[in-house]
């Protein structure tokens, strides 16, 4: 074998992947040929240098910085897409939406007796009934399980003494369909208000839910945000969050919200909350 053919086998010889016959051919040549031997020794030393390079440790919090950057980048890009899509859509302007969110928050938190009449929970518009009725079961589950919305669901005046104290709870206990719809609306509203005002606190509570419940819960919150035209506000709220332990829940919520971006917003079922009127007839 020529020198060059021997030298071409140096790599596989070094790696120990040469078959026995070839291996002994290379070895006998190396024993006789000084120049090939010298070159092989250099090559081996080169490879040894590479092998013996120690492993640089990554910076201690690299993983956290990576995750933070992903959250930040994907969030802002999604926000950009969102604004692009919502531009020109004849929806309630952002400022009004924010105002509505504020009103909704108040509505979800204050005793009803203290609210102006037009902001008190009303019977849902007929158009929204089907979807509401379909979701009733889920709400009853949430209400019964002491879920996210519970602490914020307003207590009915004078209802403190006996029986379930929330409307959702009453619906669970066998209330009418109308009561059930109102209860659902109330619960969803209070959850959205909570998510808007304290997205971290909301996420912490969702994290505590069983995994099977989580997606369901977030999906309905996203539906509610769409219905209330609060999607941009909710997305802004969750983009501000920097808590690592709830990041996955917020990302999941963001996915839910993004999945709804192509859908037309359904009619708000509480018209008067979206466009406050001076006085009821």
């Amino acid at each position: 074998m020529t020198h060059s053919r021997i030298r071409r086998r140096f790599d596989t010889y070094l790696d120990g992947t040469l078959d026995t016959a070839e291996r002994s051919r290379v070895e006998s040549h190396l024993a006789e040929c000084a120049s090939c031997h010298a070159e092989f020794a250099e090559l081996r030393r080169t490879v040894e240098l590479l092998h013996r390079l120690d492993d640089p440790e990554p910076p201690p919090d690299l993983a956290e910085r990576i995750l933070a950057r992903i959250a930040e980048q994907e969030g802002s890009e999604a926000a950009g897409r969102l604004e692009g899509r919502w531009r020109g859509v004849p929806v309630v302007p952002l400022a009004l939406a924010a105002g509505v969110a504020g009103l909704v928050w108040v509505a979800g938190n204050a005793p009803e007796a203290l609210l102006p009449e037009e902001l008190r929970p009303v019977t849902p518009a007929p158009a929204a009934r089907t979807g509401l009725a379909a979701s009733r079961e889920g709400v009853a589950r949430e209400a019964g399980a002491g879920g996210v919305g519970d602490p914020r669901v307003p207590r009915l005046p004078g209802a403190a003494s006996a029986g379930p104290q929330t409307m959702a709870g009453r619906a669970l206990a066998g209330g009418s369909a109308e009561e059930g719809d109102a209860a659902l609306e109330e619960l969803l509203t209070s959850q959205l208000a909570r998510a808007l005002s304290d997205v971290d606190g909301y996420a912490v509570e969702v994290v505590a839910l069983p995994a099977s419940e989580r997606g369901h819960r977030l999906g309905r919150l996203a539906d509610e945000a769409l219905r209330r035209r609060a999607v941009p506000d909710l997305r802004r709220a969750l983009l501000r969050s920097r808590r690592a332990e709830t990041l996955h829940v917020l990302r999941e919520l963001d996915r839910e919200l993004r999945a709804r971006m192509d859908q037309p917003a359904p009619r708000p079922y509480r018209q008067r909350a979206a466009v406050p009127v001076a006085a009821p007839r």
Partner: protein
Amino acid sequence: MNQELAERRPLVGTRPGTGHDVVDPDRDLVARWQAGDEEAFAALVRRHQGRVYRLLLRMLGNPEEAEDVAQEAFLNLHRHGHRFRGESRFSTFVYRVAANAALNRRRALGRRRERMERLERRQAAGDELPEAPRDPESAAVGEEEREEVQRALLALPETLRMPVVLYDIEGLSYGEIAEVLKLAEGTVKSRIHRARQALRKELAPFVREEQRGASS
């Protein structure tokens, strides 16, 4: 999920040595992530950040840049990870994403600037030839040698640098590298051969000296 499994294309380009026959240690985490569990993704980041950072540091030669590109790589992984269908080990896929991120970064720098840098590095390497022979017995690579090796690596064209870093530093098999770089295995072998030869010449002062020391 089942539908997804059914839609899997037959494996193309599966080569021996890709580790495909062994159960992928990341399989469960990947499945959980692809099902929407972001905690699982965070766990994958923690598990693979070290190898990504190492590869990028060897490829780019600068810790800050390595971290920056590592972040980009994981960002890409997060965006396109749903494309991973288990044709190779997940770690191979991660290397692939990292390799692409490194190559993109290099391209952005511009070829001319890179040529200039390489020239400067060679010049610098020539200026710093050690004068005294070093101890051939020393097992650990000293600070100066390490710097020289890194310099020599950076002097390689990246088409040669990537395969040799993956092979001789990261310890991937030819098959895995072929998978990472989407090259034929023969091409990978020949590039590693050429890279080692180039490194041998670049590191001649070190490797020849050793040779003299060992034979005396």
